[in-house]
């Protein structure tokens, strides 16, 4: 199929940036979206032009690197997939495709479609862990039985890949889905109980410092999340936050 690509080009954080048009021919339905981008880049390099810069690595939907806003949707059309899992069979011959970076104050553009998501790491560093040192002398793994339902819910929350689609999708650029997924995972497990109150307060505080917006419960993040992280996590985090805030000294 033949397509017209409209791609955001921005040479650096200070550049204003603009959409540029690239026609591309001979795209096959079985190609992944990123293989189509590889093809474009091969052609650009062949012509001596600079290829389009974008983040990508595992290309199987788990590392969370790829991050394209395609035709106005984070990770493009289709549900439950990342950009790298999107295949060209979702498009038709003659289509025009708009490709932009994640846009959020807390995710500044580095170049073209590549953004800086280190704010996510700093939110995790603020409390997204259980404070246990490596020793080899912890309890036997089966010493504390955990109800399967809790373990499964914790797992579902823990499958977040930190791609930032929730932030890119949210009209407020809120990171509530991302933060609540980690808070929920640890709140659901006995191991996370001891530090639960500090954790939620510190992570939310860091989230605010990074410049993410507030949550107005539109639920758009849940729809676009490639891993199907549930809005219930946000509700759980609000509960955790409120409990922690009123019981704080």
């Amino acid at each position, binding site marked *: 199929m033949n397509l017209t690509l409209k791609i955001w080009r921005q040479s650096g954080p200070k550049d204003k940036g603009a959409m540029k048009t690239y026609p591309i021919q001979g795209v096959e339905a079985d190609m992944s979206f990123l293989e189509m981008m590889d093809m474009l880049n091969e052609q650009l390099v062949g012509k001596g032009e600079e290829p389009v810069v974008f983040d990508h690595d595992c290309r199987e939907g788990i590392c969370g690197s790829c991050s394209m806003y395609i035709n106005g949707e984070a990770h493009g059309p289709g549900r439950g997939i990342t950009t790298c899992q999107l*295949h060209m069979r979702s498009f038709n011959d003659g289509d025009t495709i708009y490709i932009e970076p994640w846009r959020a104050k807390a995710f500044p553009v580095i170049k073209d479609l590549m953004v800086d998501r280190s704010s996510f790491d700093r939110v995790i560093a603020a409390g997204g862990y259980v404070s*246990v040192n490596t020793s080899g002398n912890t309890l036997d793994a089966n010493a504390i039985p955990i109800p399967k339902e809790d373990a499964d819910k914790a797992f579902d929350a823990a499958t977040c890949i930190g791609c930032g689609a929730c932030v890119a999708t949210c009209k407020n650029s809120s990171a509530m889905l991302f933060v609540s997924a980690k808070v929920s995972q640890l709140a659901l497990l006995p191991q996370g109980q001891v530090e639960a109150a500090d954790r939620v307060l510190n992570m939310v505080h860091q989230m605010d410092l990074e410049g993410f917006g507030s949550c107005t419960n539109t639920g758009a993040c849940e729809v676009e999340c490639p891993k199907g992280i549930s809005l219930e996590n946000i509700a759980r985090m609000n509960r955790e936050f409120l409990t922690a805030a009123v019981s704080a000294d």
Partner: protein
Amino acid sequence: MKLDARIPEGPIENKWTKHKAEIRLVNPANKRHIDVIVVGTGLAGASAAASMAEMGYNVKAFCFQDSPRRAHSIAAQGGINAAKNYQNDGDSTYRLFYDTIKGGDYRSREANVYRLAEVSASIIDQCVAQGVPFAREYGGLLDNRSFGGVQVSRTFYAKGQTGQQLLLGAYSALERQIAKGKVKMYARHEMLELVVVEGKARGIIARNLITGELERHSAHAVLLCSGGYGNVFFLSTNAMGSNVTAAWRAHKKGALFANPCFTQIHPTCIPVSGELQSKLTLMSESLRNDGRIWVPAKKEDAEAIRQGKLKPTQLTEEQRDYYLERRYPSFGNLVPRDVASRAAKERCDAGLGVNATGEAVYLDFSAAIERYGKTEANIRGLHSASKEEILKLGKDIVEAKYGNLFQMYEKITDDNPYETPMRIYPAVHYTMGGLWVDYNLMTTIPGCFALGEANFSDHGANRLGASALMQGLADGYFVAPYTVGDYLADEILTGTISTDTDAFVQAEKEAQDRIDHLLNNKGSKTVDHFHKRLGKIMWNECGMERSVEGLTKAIADIQALREEFYKEVRVPGKAETVNPELEKALRVADFIELGELMCRDALERNESCGGHFRAEYQTPEGEALRDDENFTFVSAWEYNGDPSSAKLHKEDLNYQFVEVKTRSYK
């Protein structure tokens, strides 16, 4: 050079305990004055960086991804082994050790493997304490499943995302140390040189992938946790960025490279579909717990399927050849990876492949769906359930076990694996070879250590499923934190290491010269063009089957390719900015050199063992034929100015605790 693995004396079950008791320690006040560099933040790197920081060292961690959480360990699917014996099926440290030695086709070092089995149980305890949500049974205890090459259930898992959950556990431990200021994290940085000062590893040159700046970083020890080199084949299950540069640069500075030809071809991957494909996707080995592998028994049926005239579901049981169950009745579909891969190739070469390229076999879940459906119907007391109801119940169970894998398969192939069997074919997955290390995981350069897939030590000629995660975390959490300390005990008076010395200046210049050459070359072909050609040579001649003729030709072809690469490669853009083409070019340049060494190693090893199958050495039934008398050694290559003049050293493997036998899974 004499290779000394420095294996502690004594009975195998006491070696590690004794070693830990006798090893030198660094007191907490001194640790504060010692710097440690960790390259790579996968399971080995993140766990090592977090553990070393907890102990009190100043750690600098590097990864090329935008966040340490994205290292490729994240993509591991099926599980992690541990000798917990929770299932009461006769598992023990010794059995895990024995299975790993046997699975590696008797080409790994006993002492290291025993230690791995010994610490495996602690890994599970540690991860659970961190809040890793492993799969559980209704009683609230941990669940297990089986992997290839073993007859017990010792694999812990979190659906098909075990690597993700373990890595996020290690990453959270790492972030905790970053918050404390004990780890300084350098994301989007790539190591381009190892700096050796007076024979000791003293730092690295890293390129900041955003600004393009070359940075000098010094330390008292350098831990390479940079993963494997499967991307030498271009198409593999590795992430696009996975590369050998850190390990290869250490090799060029004096670290021996061990068993480079030992690569693992994973039997169950989604087959290659076209020329523009960029990577291959694994379908977890855990699927072989329930999936049955088959091809049509008759060539005519295979032909009809390839032409789209026949559907696999139309073939009766008699018209199918469940070739693994036929050839290996005692292990069936759960034979080790190397055996399963070769068997698939053998059937496809015989004209029985089932996709358009003729290179695919079926992985079929219909029997499992029916079996689970019946059990579930019984549990619910539905004794008169219809076939449809049973299948529906069975599909729900299969979805709960493997849902994300089935979804992944469907997204890529547009086929529904609940209705029609998956098509799969072997693909490059893991590399058992890597930097040679002693019992302390130190390379032949003092102060330079290699952990996880980057070293060679634990898997011999073939790795068993769910053992890579085990090794990465064992090395990072439980081995290196002790053994690196033994080396650092001599460094307490060294003080901060200056980066203004000649060695740093020279190493930076070497990196700068490579970058300048590539950018100024102005050739006519892209980096991927060369990478793909290298991949084809490697896959055809140094893949699932190797021969003297093929390898000899491959070496000549790679040498010619290397020359052409430096003349003809075109790298656009500048050095002082984000430049992914330059990053790729630097990696591919190293892959080309490594490729030649892999072929030389394969040519030198005149036997078949594990993943290394030489056409000349096989039994009449087509099984691998080892030559224990002449090849029970680790080949360790010393760089000598050029891959073709690398010098071979041998570390003899003395099996004292396991009887070396012909590996049989029949």
